[in-house]
């Protein structure tokens, strides 16, 4: 494995608008993959639909550009079937928190080992700049005919309430910060979420580079002994509350950093393994071999044994009369 970041870029022309914040996220992602030395074939970038949704095509790793809102379930299937993979979800704010909000919430509940990167530009970029669920009430971007009449979703609060065990915020143009958070997120075993503030130069003239330059600060700069990590279950309530309180801040000042990490909850893959003893060694992707033609995994006897709860031994009246041992002696449960 070379650790050359260019190795993680495909030669495709990137068709985002010049100046788009997505370029920063793309750079941070490819450099992080390189620095972590993640083999491209063991890595999958899964996206929904939107400007952000095109990211996988620009990364030299497995790329799965799915349906609007459904990146998380596709990523779930990939990860559960082949738990050795590093799976990263990239989605827009409309994609993950609008049409995909149900899946976003469900992932929190499961704590699957995925890293979810929110390209948060407060608009539906690809469909020409409508308000997304993260645009605050009363804001009018240049793409809107009138000010937004919906309140904003706070992605961090929603992630914490949903059960994500790693919750952070970074900024598309602060590549160093984004990379460091991203590394932590990928290393974290469980559902990790990063809210990445991403300027959209074409439609969002409110949350601009200029705006963010003034508003952003790092939590640690304000609260030097900030420790978001839950190390034992009894710390959970308090740390969650602190994280939620900090997450409320949105306006003239916007905090960046890691808000909440819970290391006490087991990732879903472990939970499956605990109840499915074959999972660890034979995850779904490896249940069959790569041979084009093969035998079924079970013999007829194995089928009869596995599904013995449906097995009935026949003992006809003739047999009974002729004194052949009653099936009582070999009940299904014993066979």
């Amino acid at each position: 494995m070379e650790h050359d970041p260019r190795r993680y870029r495909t030669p495709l022309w990137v068709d985002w608008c010049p100046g788009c914040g997505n370029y920063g996220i793309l750079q941070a992602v490819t450099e992080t993959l390189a620095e972590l030395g993640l083999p491209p074939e063991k890595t999958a970038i899964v996206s929904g639909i939107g400007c952000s949704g095109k990211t996988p095509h620009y990364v030299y790793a497995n790329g799965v550009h799915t349906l609007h809102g459904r990146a998380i379930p596709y990523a779930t299937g990939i990860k559960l079937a082949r738990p050795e993979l590093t799976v990263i979800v990239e989605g827009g704010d409309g994609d993950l928190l609008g049409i995909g909000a149900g899946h976003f919430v469900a992932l929190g509940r499961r704590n699957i080992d995925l890293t979810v990167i929110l390209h948060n530009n407060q608009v539906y970029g690809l469909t020409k700049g409508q308000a997304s669920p993260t645009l605050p009430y009363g804001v009018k971007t240049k793409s809107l005919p009138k000010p937004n009449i919906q309140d904003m979703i706070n992605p961090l609060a929603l992630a914490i309430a949903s059960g994500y065990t790693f919750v952070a915020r970074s900024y598309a143009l602060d590549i160093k910060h984004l990379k460091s958070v991203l590394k932590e997120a990928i290393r974290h075993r469980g559902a990790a979420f990063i809210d990445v503030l991403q300027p959209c130069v074409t439609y969002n003239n409110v949350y601009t580079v200029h705006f963010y330059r003034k508003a952003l600060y790092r939590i640690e700069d304000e609260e030097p002994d900030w420790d978001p990590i839950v190390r034992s279950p009894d710390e959970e309530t308090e740390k969650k509350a602190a994280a939620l309180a900090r997450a409320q801040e949105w306006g003239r000042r916007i905090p960046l950093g890691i808000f909440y990490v819970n290391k006490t909850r087991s990732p879903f893959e472990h939970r499956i393994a605990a109840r499915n003893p074959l999972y660890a060694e034979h995850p779904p992707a490896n249940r069959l071999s790569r041979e084009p033609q093969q035998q079924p995994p079970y013999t007829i006897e194995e089928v009869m044994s596995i599904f013995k709860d449906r097995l009935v031994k026949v003992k006809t009246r003739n047999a009974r009369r002729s004194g052949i041992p009653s099936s009582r002696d070999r009940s299904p449960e014993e066979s």
Partner: protein
Amino acid sequence: MSMDKPPPPLMALIGGPQGAGLETSAQVLTVAYATLGYRVLASREYHSNIIGRHSYILLGVDPARVPRGHRYPVDVASFMDAESVFTHYKDVDRGSIVFYDSDVDNVSLERIVSMETETKRRLRRELEELGVEPTVVGVTKYMKSMGVEVVGFSYRGLLSSLRREYGIGYAEARRYISMVVAASVAKLTGLSLEELEEGLRYRFRSRPALVERNMAVARRVYSHLGNVAQIALPEPQEPPDHYMVMTGNEAVAIGKAVAGVGLQAYYPITPAQDESFYMEAHEDQTGIVVFQAEDELAAIAVATGAALTGARAATATSGPGFDLMIEGVGWACINEAPVAVTLYQRGGPSTGLPTRGSQEDLLDAAFAGHGECPRIVVASWSHEEALTDAVEAQNLAEEYQIPVIHLLDKFLANSVATLPPPMTTSFQIRRGSIEPRPGSDYRRFALPGPVSPRAFIGDAVMWYTGDEHDEYGHITEEPETRIAMVKKRFAKLDEAARNIPEEGVRLHLYPEDADPSGLDMLIHSWGTAARVTAEAVDMLRRRGLRAALVRVHYFSPYPSRLLSSIAAEAHQAGARLVNVEHNYTAQAAKIAAMKSGVVFDTHVLKYTGRPIYIDELVEALMAIHEKGLKEVHLGHGA
């Protein structure tokens, strides 16, 4: 029994309120018959609620083969409550035996609160027309007057002695009612107590104490029925060593295990859910990951994601869930991802009749989804075929890298049949073209296709997108590539059509050796409706009518050529072309017109959510034959 009283030779009906143990009764009976070597088909009708509404099970018992349907009047009926008596008084006839709770004799129709208003209104009208008093005793009198043998039994008496004997409460005592019902049917069909006990020991294999108590109940029933004439069952023919007693849901679950499925993602919905529950219950032995998704949008996505890594992946649902999956089916289609969807049809539209059956989703399965999405559509007609098709669905999905819709219905899903254990040596796992050593220039969608060698996420690097794409899987809008990719995707169906024979695979003629040019009637059908039709065909033939069934098994790739040649031959010979389906719009006939130009313009249709019964079907077909009717709508069944 009249000369042409159709098989199966024994038909029993047991009825009672939902949640009162009817399924236990049916299981005990089914296993008892199976242990003796009989083939059984037990089908359940129930309301979409949890407890209290009326529910009933029809059991067909046959010495030679699994019954292909049910018929009325039944030979034996055993009822838990007054509602059952009212609901089924017309399901018995001269020669039938009815067993019921004599304590409810004075209950009037009006007092049955759990009965639907509309049903009550209909029954009130019917009884009035017959001049029957709307009480249980009135109805039993009527039955007797029709030649039915009616036997009362005091459930209250039994219950109070059980409460005394075991020191249990009323609610617990009531659980033994299911045994009363089972024992009554067993006794009336000639099972010895010991033979009945086989069923009980299967049922309560983890709680042997219950076997004893239930046997005590059975003995009470047996002695009460000591003098009643029994219905004699012919000896079973060549029974196997073992049966597997399973529902259609379970047959599919076992098929998926045999096929090597690694992950099943689902969201619960009637009547699909039991398949996933059954898989989940065996997760620790099969290793299959059974994943309960947050909805069906997610279920298909999880399954498809898994498929991209090389897992065999599946999902199962019914109509409303399929609606939500269809965008995902389109994604799988353009990404040539092998994913199999088991679609159990129930009564629609919308929530419709959620616990009743239908064949209403065929056009949906074939054509839903925007854009043009080639898919394989296969419809099973029996439990056995449900299992083999579940295996084949996985094979076809991987061989052609295409979504496969496996169509079943509630009738199959929730009915229990006795099958020989699946001969796994006769199955093959065919994974299609796999790239053994994908390089760094691997092209997932290499042209010209139709099947590019597959590599898996985790073994190589590749891209997938719902957009039209180039060979690598990167988005393109170039017209030339677009044309090539559309053709590549549709060529899969052409190739499948070349490889999968029409005769005997995509299309079945029944009897197999029927000569289309010597027919009075060619009947087109599919799924469970076709299975009942096969039974009807036998009966019509016994009556001298030269009938044959043409059953479509694969709706895509469609057996156009063979169907049109058979139909043309039959038509030319003057045969009537009749279509039998469980829906209102004759969907399979529409596809026949569309895909092979064959017009079946005489229809037997049913859409009440209850199965097509052999007797009503035979009657309809005879009426068509004799009176030239063009359309008959069936309605039997409570």
